[in-house]
């Protein structure tokens, strides 16, 4: 007999973890009450959340939705929210002063927007990218109205230019510079000499037009989306070019890019908006009708492009020099190596920063209320100037905050999805 008195022959089946370590209790213990300090923080947080909700929930839950004025709300029950202002004005908060019978146009524009960004956001639908190219023109036509051909002619012009470029390249010469320049010249000549004539005739042959709506009528969340999304879409490529320009070996390009970025970053956005709204009028000849929304979009785009450039430069700086050298040693040209090796990696690193800039830009669009545009924040003060609603603050700002939150949160969620998808170092 061996000296060992007892040998366990079978493996003891694992016993369930103690109740204090699993399930709800375990989660609470691990995450909320793991030490006395965390317990204290937890209790304090619960207390503060309670204080806020204790007042907010009864206020919001019992709110009035169908009174005719603030006075009526106050007479019924002054301690709850008066959401009636939203019932009366939600259309204005969404569409600004856009004519009521044309509300379908901004609505359709934003539904189509979703379809136009899907091919960009999700690569498996990339075959629908053509719609993303058509969309900007379509959106401008839908929102501002007028003849479809005044927008369509831009597409026709560029289409002919690209066609000429391809034809020249195939049949005449392989020299990119000559074909490129001659195609551009052709497009310019087309717009100077033929476009007006063509628009006039197309209008007669196939008259498709919508009642025009001027920028004065644009407002509400529609305006925020117009300015924000156009700014986001346009600032991204400009930002990439500026970032590359800043790292370029060509001194003049580098100087221009550095100068631009540092100038724009050194100036507050509101200053640029004032330039757009006020100063440009002095420089332009009197009677020039340079649309105010367009001016604002240009300024917002330039502003965020400068920030975008620095974010992307951060991504570029994060790549080891070896990547550049390796791609050069493979015989790739500058643009090929940027497109195939450098940018995919640099942009991936910069995703959080890029989305950060996008979200910042979108929220900055509320600054346009200072230069008289009626974005939701500007409209809030217009609505308050109506004696019916004079004195309403929280209800309007809560609603506006929610609208912005939905869009910004959506952007943030997409960026996290993208980061997970592109994660290569698992």
């Amino acid at each position: 007999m061996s000296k060992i008195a007892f040998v366990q022959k079978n493996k003891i089946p694992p016993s369930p973890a103690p109740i204090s370590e699993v399930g709800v209790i375990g989660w609470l213990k691990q995450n909320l009450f793991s030490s006395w300090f965390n317990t204290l923080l937890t209790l304090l947080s619960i207390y503060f959340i309670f204080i806020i909700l204790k007042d907010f929930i009864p206020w919001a839950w019992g709110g009035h939705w169908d009174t005719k004025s603030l006075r009526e709300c106050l007479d019924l029950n002054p301690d709850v929210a008066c959401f009636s202002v939203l019932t009366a004005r939600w259309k204005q908060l969404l569409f600004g002063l856009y004519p009521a019978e044309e509300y379908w146009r901004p609505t359709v524009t934003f539904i189509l927007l979703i379809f136009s960004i899907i091919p960009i956001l999700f690569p498996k639908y990339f075959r629908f990218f053509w719609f993303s190219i058509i969309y900007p023109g379509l959106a401008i036509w839908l929102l501002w109205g007028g003849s479809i051909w005044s927008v369509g002619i831009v597409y026709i012009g560029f289409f002919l230019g690209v066609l000429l470029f391809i034809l020249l390249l195939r049949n005449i010469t392989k020299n990119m510079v000559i074909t490129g320049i001659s195609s551009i010249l052709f497009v310019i000549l087309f717009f100077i000499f033929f476009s007006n004539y063509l628009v006039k005739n197309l209008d007669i042959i196939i008259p498709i037009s919508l009642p025009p709506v001027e920028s004065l009528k644009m407002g509400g969340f529609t305006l925020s989306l117009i300015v924000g999304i156009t700014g986001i879409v346009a600032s991204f490529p400009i930002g990439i070019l500026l970032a590359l320009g800043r790292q370029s070996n060509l001194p003049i390009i580098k100087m221009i890019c550095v100068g631009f970025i540092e100038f724009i970053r050194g100036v507050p956005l509101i200053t640029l908006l004032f330039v757009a709204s006020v100063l440009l009028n002095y420089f332009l000849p009197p009677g020039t009708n340079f649309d105010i929304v367009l001016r604002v979009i240009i300024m917002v785009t330039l502003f965020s492009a400068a920030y975008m450039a620095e974010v992307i430069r951060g991504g570029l700086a994060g790549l080891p020099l070896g990547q550049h050298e390796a791609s050069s040693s493979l015989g790739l040209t500058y643009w090929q190596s940027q497109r195939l090796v450098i940018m995919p990696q640099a942009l991936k690193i910069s995703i959080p920063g890029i989305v950060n800039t996008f979200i910042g830009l979108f929220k900055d669009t509320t600054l346009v209320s200072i230069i008289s545009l009626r974005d939701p924040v500007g409209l809030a003060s217009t609505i308050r100037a109506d004696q019916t609603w004079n004195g309403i603050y929280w209800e309007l700002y809560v609603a506006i905050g929610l609208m912005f939150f939905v869009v910004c949160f959506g952007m943030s969620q997409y960026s996290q999805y993208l980061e997970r998808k592109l994660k290569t170092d698992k």
Partner: protein
Amino acid sequence: MRKSLFMVLSSILLILGGQAAFSGGHSVTLDDVKARGNLLCGVSTGAPGFATVDDSGKDVGFDVDYCRALAAAIFGDPMAVKFVGLTSAVRFTALAAGEVDILARNTTWTYSRDTDLKQTFLGVNYYDGQGFMVKKDLGVNSTLELDGATVCIQVGTTTELNLADYFKENGMSYEPVPTADNAESQQQYLAGACDTYTTDASALHGTRVNLENPDDHLVLPEIISKEPLGPLVRHGDDNWADIGRWVLNALIIAEEKGITKSNIDSWKDTKDAEIHRLLGTGDDDILAMVGLPKNAMYNAIKAGGNYGEIFENNLGATSGINIERGVNASWTKGGILYSPPFR
């Protein structure tokens, strides 16, 4: 070199000549407005009673109605006007740059705005002034009893300077509670952070009506500053200024004479020659002097009524703001509203 100098000189002469042509009896701005088919009127993006949009998106307000009268005088159609909402930050440049033809944006007429900013004020359509609101249970009935009070005051405004001057003049002390805008002042006042809050009296009245219990609050009777509000145009087109000024005067005279929107058609047989000149029912067509149709003022008054009616609808009892006429009554009723004769 000499040739280019000659070019420059001759173009300067041309410009000067063009400017001289301005004063020849017709208005360039009026021509532009007529060619465009509508008037561009700069109003506030939101000033209670003065300019806002209603639930259906229509522009309404005291300043809005003045511009409708002006549009009616020019086109016979009170709807032939586009309202450009302007914040106080951009209003003067928008006018100077020609984005609007006229600015009717509860703007105080001051010396430097008139001269340095090169604008022409057409008159006063509302005599405002800085007032104080207190809670009734404070037991104060006059601003002179406010010694030692805490005052909510918007920083960086003329009201802040007026407040300091007024308390100093009267040998009183106060403790300022600085706020960013009227909204914050109101919240601080309601939360009890200050005994009284001060801003333009018209705004105080509008705010008070929509407080939880308006009767617990009192707008003190004293007005401590002059804030004459009025429409304005840019320098350089005196005929255009005349048109705007006399439309305003016509509305004031109409109230003085008792001509209202509803009874305007019943004055054909009056013996008052001024009424005939005003409504264009007499023989002489004096409105041709400024390039307006003979019945221009008839249309202007018909658009929104006389001055008193416009006041009632936007600021007075009908509007819910309940501002009393006070100094803004006609001179025949104890106010200081006084138009030069229409002849």
